[in-house]
């Protein structure tokens, strides 16, 4: 009841805000320059939230400009079996500096209608190119030279879950970690899309990827002026050309392998939105126990015929939105596994015991 009242009030205020915006725009010589004044103090996502806090009801009238600063840099990650794997990853620039590289890159969340600016500083030895399949980027070159910085801009029109990645190195840069999830939220909070059927209580990212150690090693090695990634051959023609060197040793949810993957905490009856992003190079298929999912959207597009599933394939490079409802009768401590049904459930080899993509929805 109170929520509905709130929405009505928001709509009224929105109308007033629209009028104000038009007047302000006329006074300042155009809407673009009006936006510019809001954009100036924004630095990244946290600043945007801050801006929203001051104008919580103006979103429909004046989408807040979002500025995201990222670095692309080399780093390492440690697998559960102790293996240290060189990676390339995106990391958010905070107060002018970037921390260690992350896989996947930070989850970027923007609102429908936001003018978005993403600036990437390339600290890697190779040229990279930022790409967001399904999002129309403003025209202009996207290549970022080593040591260089480039800004790309777009307006986020279509709610949904997306993959952002570097398309550099013939896709190999994404495979060694330069990829992450980008979410465009609809106007109504708590929904995957504008449609009411996509309402959720909790959301969780399910960014899937794999690690091919030979490829990551190539990224860490120097060939000429750059890395050895671009010249990596998936077949070794000097030794055995019949055996692919694309041999994933680790399969990850959100950059981590079981048992290092944190559970998703959800209460009985909760609708959990799983934002599946396959940032890897293999098709990924997950199954689940004790619950099932409803696939409501794919590739930033609401399905007209959503369907329920237990096991589902997510093609490499794809994104999908699924809602899992925790049974209302679930007791405290209940766990609902979601795991790789291709059963690559090891870290490195079977000698390590269970590993790979196993994650639980857990009732606290």
């Amino acid at each position, binding site marked *: 009841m109170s929520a509905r009242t709130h929405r009505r009030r928001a709509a009224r205020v929105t109308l007033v805000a629209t009028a104000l915006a038009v007047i302000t725009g006329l006074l300042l010589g155009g809407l673009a320059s009006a936006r510019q004044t809001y954009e100036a103090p924004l630095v990244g996502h946290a600043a945007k939230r801050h801006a929203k806090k001051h104008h919580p009801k103006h979103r429909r009238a004046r989408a807040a400009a979002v500025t995201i600063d990222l670095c692309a840099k080399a780093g390492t990650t440690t697998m559960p079996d102790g293996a240290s794997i060189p990676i390339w990853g995106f990391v958010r620039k905070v107060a002018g500096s970037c921390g260690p590289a992350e896989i996947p890159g930070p989850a970027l969340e923007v609102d429908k209608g936001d003018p978005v600016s993403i600036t990437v500083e390339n600290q890697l030895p190779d040229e990279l190119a930022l790409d967001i399949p399904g999002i129309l980027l403003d025209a202009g070159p996207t290549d970022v030279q080593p040591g260089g910085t480039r800004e790309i801009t777009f307006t986020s029109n279509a709610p949904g879950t997306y993959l952002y990645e570097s398309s550099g190195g013939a896709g190999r840069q994404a495979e060694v970690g330069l990829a992450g999830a980008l979410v465009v939220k609809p106007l109504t909070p708590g929904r995957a899309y504008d449609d009411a059927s996509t309402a959720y209580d909790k959301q969780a990212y399910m960014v899937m990827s794999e690690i091919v150690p030979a490829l990551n090693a190539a990224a860490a090695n120097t060939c000429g002026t750059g890395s050895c990634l671009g010249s990596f051959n998936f077949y070794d023609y000097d030794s055995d050309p019949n055996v692919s060197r694309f041999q994933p040793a680790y399969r990850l949810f959100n950059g981590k392998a079981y048992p290092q993957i944190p559970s998703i905490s959800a209460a009985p009856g909760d609708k959990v939105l799983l934002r599946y992003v396959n940032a890897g190079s293999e098709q990924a298929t997950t199954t689940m*126990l004790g619950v099932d999912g409803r696939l409501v959207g794919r590739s930033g597009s609401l399905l007209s015929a959503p369907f329920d599933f237990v096991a589902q*394939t997510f093609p490499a490079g794809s994104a999908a939105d699924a809602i899992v409802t925790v049974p209302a009768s679930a007791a405290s401590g209940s766990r609902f596994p979601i795991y790789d*049904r291709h059963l690559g459930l090891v870290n490195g080899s*079977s000698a390590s015991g269970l590993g790979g993509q196993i994650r639980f929805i857990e009732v606290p």
Partner: protein
Amino acid sequence: MRLAVACLALLGALVGVGPAAAADPAGLVCSDGPTFNLTARAGGMETPDGNTNLMWSYSTTAGHFQTPGPVLCVDAGDTVTVHLRNELPEATSIVFPGQTGVSATGGTSGLFTKEAAPGGDITYTFTANTPGTYVYESGTDPAKQVEMGLASALVVRPPGHADWAYADSSTAFNGEFLVLLNEIDPELHSAVENGQPYDISTLHNRYYTINGRSFPDTLQDNGVPWLENQPYGSLVHIKPYDATLNKRPALVRVLNVGLANHPFHPHGESLQFIAQDGRQIKARTTGNDAVTEHFGETVPSGSTQDFLLSFRDQDSFAPGNPVPVTFPSYRDMTFKDNNTWYSGSPYLGTVGKLPSPTVSQNVCGAFFFPWHSHALNEFANYDVAFGGMATLLRVDPLTGCGTPGLQTYTGSPASVTRTSPTPVATVSNGQQGLAALGGTRTDVTSNTSGTTRRVEWYATFTGVPAAGVNLKVAYSGYNRLTGFLSGLPWGGCTQTVRIWNWTTSAWVNLNTQTVQRTQVDIADLLPAGPDTKYIGTGGNGGEVRVGVACTRTFSSSFLSATFVSSGDLMQITYDAP
């Protein structure tokens, strides 16, 4: 063997949980619940290439080892109880993807569910909720145990409607079929058999199965005694749609319990995709069916898909509605290994002629279509095609598989074989060389002087219809020296079998080879078409002339000899209009 099976069946009947009783030869075989006594144990599965792989599987506790495990059939709302006894060397369990509220009693806690220790027991209980097709499989070290075979199907039926797939009359079916996909890496199974380390990261599949068998074993009936551990066939055996006699579609329950996705490709008729993982497919706004037609569909690992199948023969090809292309003559067809499921006729319920010695497996003019994985490496047994993940759709005539009508059809009529021409000896090199005509053998003598000796003769078939087609010639004969020399090897002469072209008034050579004293049978000589130029007109109307010529040039007059061309058989075959 048969006796042993009978005894087992009897034992099963006594304890009430036996293996599927004597079932239909084709179609899904249920083990009826809602209480099941299963044992996880090891056994062998055979592949068509003669290999045997160790499998781990669920079997009914009182029954024989089987792979895949028994198909558990229950009604929605049933309280399902599954007692599992573990006869494997390591802890094991069962999980039921798609079911909610599964509780386990006994055993010890595992990652996904409670587990039974080796030699131990555990009981799972749940209320079957939504009708549909589900997987049940091991929840313990699944990368090993599921790959080893611990997986099968759970069927939940709408109460009161055993012949509906869902609680929805639009899913009523006539005939129910299981297509359970899996694959096997024999090296990993061998490692388990021999106590070697098992490493899923070395997985390399070699065998691909439907219902636990590889093609062509998939076509064998359910429960054949020579596949005692693999009781489930996967022939999809139906009749065509008919508004009164066969209104309902068949239901095809497809499951993938393997580790890889499989692109399943049904020929013959598209399948109507009605549900995934036991959940009907509905449109969001209207709630109406959002079913789609499929002739190729990825079946994700661990998923199930339900399809309805009506064979509608939309083109209605029948003798009165012939195939709208020129149908190749049966004699222009070849069949791999001289073996086929083709009836010789494109019309359902009829058979036609096939070239000798081709054998047809088609007894009543049924239609056969392959259903297979379109990943062609999976359409093989250890890389040898055609095998693996494949079965057949068999469509019988609506009236059943009775005595078929023999149907000959335009383009492949009954052929006429003629073996009694009228021989006419001719003269070569201006020399007289006539010999006896007629009889059982035609002997024509060559000219008798010079170093080059030659014989030419022909025979005439009369009464060949002007529109006869697919003319084919055969000739059997030999060439010997004359007189007391006739038994000696002599190197023979260069023999040409030929046919007279009435349009150009010239011989057309069909076959040339050296033939001496041993008879050579030359068959299936096909003159270049059109055949009308070999069939005489006017005063020679209906005449076909087949000739034989043979020439030998000797090295000197002294060594030259006269010879005889002896024809034992001259034959033409043609298709009458």
